[in-house]
């Protein structure tokens, strides 16, 4: 790729901060260190305010399999306390680190797995095998990718804003990781017991846009900047329907903390249908709304216009290579996991078992099963649904999703005050269906179905 | 003729006719000579007829029972101001009835005469206009029942005399004479005016007879005599004297007689009418009219001082004028001085209490003096405007008619016995003077006056008519239009004596009331006095003939009398230097006052005015400079500095929000400092 001839004046007349360019390992170390430091700092802060799992050495029923991780942690802490007689704050510190460690490792594994699974599923959808060279059924493919990412030379475009180029991946990954801290993996297993968990989630969701912008701007490339602008616009416009759907759930469950929301979905109807919000008319519509907005938020599948391979190559990530690109990649997936986990807590009853008699399986397993189900759904959607055009993408958000969001809230309110009986169901069902019908009509009028005309090949 | 309602119309008609004539001639074209003369003569003749009718009416009414004199007064309100009103009135009584007849008759004759006399004059119409105006004024004066109306007509008469004296305005002498006449009569009128005002303020009315409240009626007179004024003099006496001043001025009595000789500058008919018969008689008429005022005194025996004054003034004037007349060489001047002395006689008669004597002498004098003047006029006319008697002589052959008529006049004037009215009237005056209780000096003065009169008249006759003609022109007899009035006048002078002889003193009773009876024997009643006067007249004529008759008179040589008493003659010729005396005193004082006033005027007032002007100009330029320097410049200064500072402040508002905010910030800091550490 020819070095982009830069306008003489644009030559920055200050010493280029380009140590990253020449010493890849140092950048790698710097990246990891930055991520860890920032993550720990924020968790510290949160923990100070809301001592949750991290510090609470709560030992519930010892034998309950659902509490296995807690029991382990308690045991370990007990051991440390007795054997190494550490100071209490030392204990606290270690417990925090234990939780962080488990979280990172679990989601790291899932990340690796997903990258492989995604490529495998896409391939299967496209009637091909997918990566199967590296290890049995391509199981070591993620490892191969990781090594590739690490060994690749980290190229920083000349004239690019070195600092921003470096900071962008960090500001993308950190919020994604932080969001994991508030998801209720199991009963009592919430890393940070926050009263405003949902709000925390949306706040950090918002910060990713800054990262995208940094990436776009730092790479001193018109197209990457353009891609960044587009993705930011998309993320902002889809954030609102996301928020509205969550609002409906929050309104009904009466609290912003995920734990409360999950507990609100406890119990079963007709002894086998769980109280999940998804099984309520507004809940189902809300879940659909939430899930599509979630896909858009994480720039995937039908909404991945900015990074779409056929559009602007990798959008704001084109100028990245090597480990920084890996970080971006990781941030994207973890963002997806987080948002799916969030969808699970909001609509799919968090760690509650779908059927009463399945309750013996520990809560956190249910959480991850549902989470991964959604991820697979996302991958499936990615494989099948065609990419949306730019203005349709934006139009869809503002013209349909937001009104739909309001309809869901209205339906929820009606459902709530109608006491959950049959009339409540019917009314909220009607309210929910109205926008869909309207959408149907609009689409029918604007884009009447007609035989496809092949202009260049004879039919 | 029983009711007397038509009398007032006639009374006011008599004066108004000449006025109408005067008005028309004034407005008409001066070239209409016949119109002017015709109108004037016509109006006077009608007036004369009406006067006759009234005269007959008065005579017919008789004196009524108890010696009451016939008197009708008709008063009307002239105008009202506030509560009081000014009333005028007309009066008819024997006194003014006679006068009316005399004035209108003489006026008529003179007008007829002047038609011939003024034939060649260019301003013929204007002359007749003035004559008509004069007649109106004189008649108005006669019929007036109010002192105010009398005064108005009195002034108009003065005006007419001024106009007529100065008729030939080209001659500076005439103009000076008219002005002199006007001013001297004005001085007298001043006295009359003051008296009138004083009377009005005291009595509240100016009417002579107002049904009991009139000025001359008993009640008012009583009031006037009782109130005393300055110097203890009775009010009536004081006012009487003031009225007498007016009379003296108009009739040319001693102090104010200087204007009459100079008035001869006017045309001769004027002199005849005004300065012989009528106007000069106005003064005497006034005294006669206001006689009750003059005679009023607390106790009837004592003769009021006013009358005494009148008597003395009359006597002195008579002698004084007669002496001067002796030394005059101008024919009209001699007659003028003789008029003054005869007026003195009339005043003397009135002073002595004899109203009828005075009035009779007045009427008689009017006739023969008019006659003499007109005679002189025809002489002058004949000698082609020569007035100096030394250049005449021997005219009895050239102008026999004028000589005859002139002789009749001369004899009447000097008082030839029995046949002529002059004798009887003078006789009565001498009789009254003889019995005057106060002193007998006026009697002797009167006698001496009579002698002098006879003397200067004979001198004049000899100079003019006897001897041979010494002038350069060829005298010729006047035309009939001039001689006929002369003859009428002459017959009048003679016939008048009939009504005033002691035998049948009709006129006396007519004027003063009382029954009249005819008895021939009474004619010789005062024979002693008559004999004395005859002797005096005879000696006067004799001496006159002795001095002038025997030798040929010369034009340039000294006068016969002058040869006898040259210094006295010269003094008398120069009118006893009265004019020079006036000139030296009054006029010089006047001039001095004038100069003082002029100096005062130029120095003081002019100075004051210029001073004020200067002050104003100073103040105005001061304010202008203040305005220009202080206000304008100061104001401009203020404006420019304002604009400058405005500009500087404007620069602060340059739209740069950062500077704004900077100031805000600093403001906040200061405030905080202020409050935090306060």
């Amino acid at each position, binding site marked *: 790729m020819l070095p982009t001839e830069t306008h003489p004046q644009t030559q920055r007349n200050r010493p280029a901060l380009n140590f990253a360019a020449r010493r890849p390992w140092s950048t790698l170390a710097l990246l990891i260190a930055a991520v860890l430091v920032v993550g720990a700092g924020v968790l510290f802060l949160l923990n100070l305010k809301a001592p949750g799992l991290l510090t609470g050495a709560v030992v519930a029923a010892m034998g309950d399999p659902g509490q296995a991780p807690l029991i382990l942690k308690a045991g370990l802490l007990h051991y440390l306390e007795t054997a190494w007689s550490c100071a209490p704050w030392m204990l606290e510190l270690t417990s925090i680190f234990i939780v962080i460690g488990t979280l990172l490792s679990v989601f790291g594994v899932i990340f690796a797995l997903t990258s492989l699974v995604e490529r495998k599923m896409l391939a299967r959808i496209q009637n091909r095998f997918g990566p199967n060279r590296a290890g049995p059924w391509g199981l070591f493919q993620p490892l191969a990718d990781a090594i590739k990412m690490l060994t690749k030379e980290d190229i920083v475009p000349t004239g690019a804003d070195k600092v921003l180029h470096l900071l962008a991946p960090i500001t993308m990954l950190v919020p994604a990781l932080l969001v994991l801290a508030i998801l209720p993996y199991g009963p009592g297993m919430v890393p940070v017991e926050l009263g405003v968990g949902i709000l925390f989630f949306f706040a950090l969701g918002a910060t990713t846009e800054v990262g995208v912008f940094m990436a776009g701007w730092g790479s001193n490339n018109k197209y990457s900047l353009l891609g960044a602008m587009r993705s930011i616009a998309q993320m902002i416009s889809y954030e609102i329907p996301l928020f509205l759907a969550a609002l409906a759930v929050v309104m009904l469950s009466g609290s912003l903390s995920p734990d409360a929301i999950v507990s609100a979905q406890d119990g079963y109807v007709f002894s086998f249908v769980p109280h999940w919000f998804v099984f309520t008319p507004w809940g189902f519509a809300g879940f659909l709304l939430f899930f599509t907005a979630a896909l858009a938020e994480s720039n995937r599948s039908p909404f991945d216009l900015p990074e779409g391979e056929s559009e602007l190559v990798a959008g704001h990530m084109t100028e990245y290579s090597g480990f920084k690109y890996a970080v971006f990649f990781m941030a994207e997936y973890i963002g997806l996991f987080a948002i799916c986990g969030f969808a699970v807590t909001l609509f799919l009853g968090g760690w509650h078992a779908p059927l009463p008699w399945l309750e013996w399986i520990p809560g956190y397993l249910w959480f991850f099963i549902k989470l991964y189900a959604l991820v697979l759904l996302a991958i499936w959607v990615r494989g099948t649904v065609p990419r949306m055009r730019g203005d349709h993408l934006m139009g869809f958000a503002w013209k349909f999703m937001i009104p739909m969001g309001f309809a869901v809230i209205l339906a929820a309110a009606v459902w709530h005050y109608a006491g959950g009986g049959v009339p409540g169901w019917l009314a909220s069902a009607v309210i929910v269906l109205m926008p869909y019908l309207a959408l149907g009509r609009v689409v029918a009028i604007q884009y009447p179905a007609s035989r496809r005309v092949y202009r260049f090949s004879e039919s | 003729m029983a009711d007397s309602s038509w009398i007032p119309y006639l009374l006011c008609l008599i004066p108004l006719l000449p006025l109408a004539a005067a008005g028309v001639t004034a407005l008409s074209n001066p070239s209409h000579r016949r119109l002017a003369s015709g109108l004037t003569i016509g109006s006077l003749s009608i007036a004369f007829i009406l006067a006759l009718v009234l005269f007959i009416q008065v005579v017919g009414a008789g004196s009524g029972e108890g010696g009451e004199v016939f008197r009708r007064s008709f008063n009307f309100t002239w105008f009202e101001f506030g509560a009081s009103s000014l009333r005028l009135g007309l009066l008819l009584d024997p006194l003014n009835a006679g006068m009316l007849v005399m004035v209108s008759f003489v006026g008529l004759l003179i007008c007829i005469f002047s038609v011939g006399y003024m034939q060649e004059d260019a301003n013929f119409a204007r002359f007749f206009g003035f004559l008509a105006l004069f007649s109106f004024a004189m008649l108005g004066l006669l019929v007036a029942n109010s002192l105010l109306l009398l005064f108005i007509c009195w002034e108009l008469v003065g005006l007419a005399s001024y106009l007529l004296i100065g008729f030939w305005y080209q001659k500076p002498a005439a103009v000076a004479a008219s002005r002199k006449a006007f001013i001297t009569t004005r001085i007298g009128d001043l006295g009359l005016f003051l008296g009138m005002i004083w009377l009005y303020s005291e009595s509240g009315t100016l009417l002579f007879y107002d049904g009991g409240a009139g000025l001359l009626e008993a009640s008012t007179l009583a009031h006037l005599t009782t109130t005393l004024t300055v110097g203890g003099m009775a009010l009536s006496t004081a006012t009487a004297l003031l009225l007498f001043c007016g009379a003296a001025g108009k009739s040319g009595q001693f102090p104010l007689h200087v204007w009459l000789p100079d008035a001869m500058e006017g045309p001769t008919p004027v002199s005849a009418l005004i300065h012989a018969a009528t106007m000069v008689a106005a003064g005497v008429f006034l005294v006669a009219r206001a006689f009750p005022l003059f005679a009023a005194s607390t106790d009837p025996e004592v003769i009021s001082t006013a009358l005494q004054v009148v008597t003395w003034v009359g006597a002195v004037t008579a002698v004084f004028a007669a002496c001067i007349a002796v030394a005059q060489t101008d024919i009209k001047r001699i007659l003028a001085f003789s008029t003054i002395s005869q007026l003195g006689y009339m005043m003397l008669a009135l002073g002595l209490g004899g109203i009828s004597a005075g009035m009779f002498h007045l009427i008689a004098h009017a006739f023969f003096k008019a006659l003499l003047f007109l005679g002189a006029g025809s002489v002058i006319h004949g000698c082609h405007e020569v007035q100096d008697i030394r250049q005449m002589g021997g005219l009895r052959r050239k102008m026999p008619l004028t000589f005859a008529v002139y002789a009749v006049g001369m004899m009447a004037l000097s008082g030839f016995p029995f046949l002529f009215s002059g004798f009887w009237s003078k006789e009565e005056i001498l009789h009254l003077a003889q019995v005057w209780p106060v002193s007998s000096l006026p009697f002797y003065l009167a006698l001496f006056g009579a002698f002098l009169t006879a003397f200067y008249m004979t001198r004049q006759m000899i100079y003019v008519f006897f001897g041979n003609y010494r002038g350069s022109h060829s005298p010729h007899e006047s035309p009939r239009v001039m001689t006929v009035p002369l003859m009428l006048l002459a017959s009048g002078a003679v016939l008048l004596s009939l009504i005033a002889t002691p035998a049948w003193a009709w006129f006396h009773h007519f004027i003063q009331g009382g029954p009249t009876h005819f008895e021939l024997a009474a004619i010789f009643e005062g024979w002693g006095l008559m004999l004395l006067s005859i002797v005096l007249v005879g000696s006067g004529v004799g001496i006159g003939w002795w001095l002038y008759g025997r030798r040929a008179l010369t034009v340039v040589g000294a006068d016969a009398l002058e040869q006898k008493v040259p210094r006295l003659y010269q003094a008398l010729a120069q009118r006893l230097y009265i004019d020079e005396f006036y000139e030296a005193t009054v006029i010089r004082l006047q001039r001095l006052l004038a100069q003082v006033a002029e100096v005062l005027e130029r120095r003081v007032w002019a100075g004051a005015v210029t001073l004020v002007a200067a002050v104003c100009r100073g103040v105005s330029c001061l304010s202008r400079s203040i305005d220009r320097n202080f206000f304008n410049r100061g104001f401009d200064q203020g404006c420019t500095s304002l604009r400058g500072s405005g500009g500087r402040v404007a620069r602060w508002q*340059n*739209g740069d929000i*950062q500077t704004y905010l900077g100031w805000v*910030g600093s403001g906040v800091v200061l405030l905080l400092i202020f409050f935090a550490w306060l």
Partner: protein
Amino acid sequence: MIGLPLFLILSTMLFSLGLFAVLTRRSAILLLIGVELMLAAANLNFIAFWRFGPNPAAMTGALFVLFSIAVAAAEAAVGLSLILVIYRHLRSTNPKEVNSLHG
């Protein structure tokens, strides 16, 4: 000991920095940034006083900050769009050049 004064001092520093930015920077956007800094400082003050104030139960401080954040957001939006228009019109964002009302 982290007490109220420390927070106040911190917010005053922020405020003066913001003011400095507004007074000296040459670009309109930086002015806005300065303003945002000042607003953040003010909100910090509110919360500090709410936290250390006598009556934490009364939510006024917090609510006030909520409303202030909303208003600040609106203000930022309008401000930025204005800057946009000015830039499009005058081709420069230097406040010194934006000093006339006409045109």
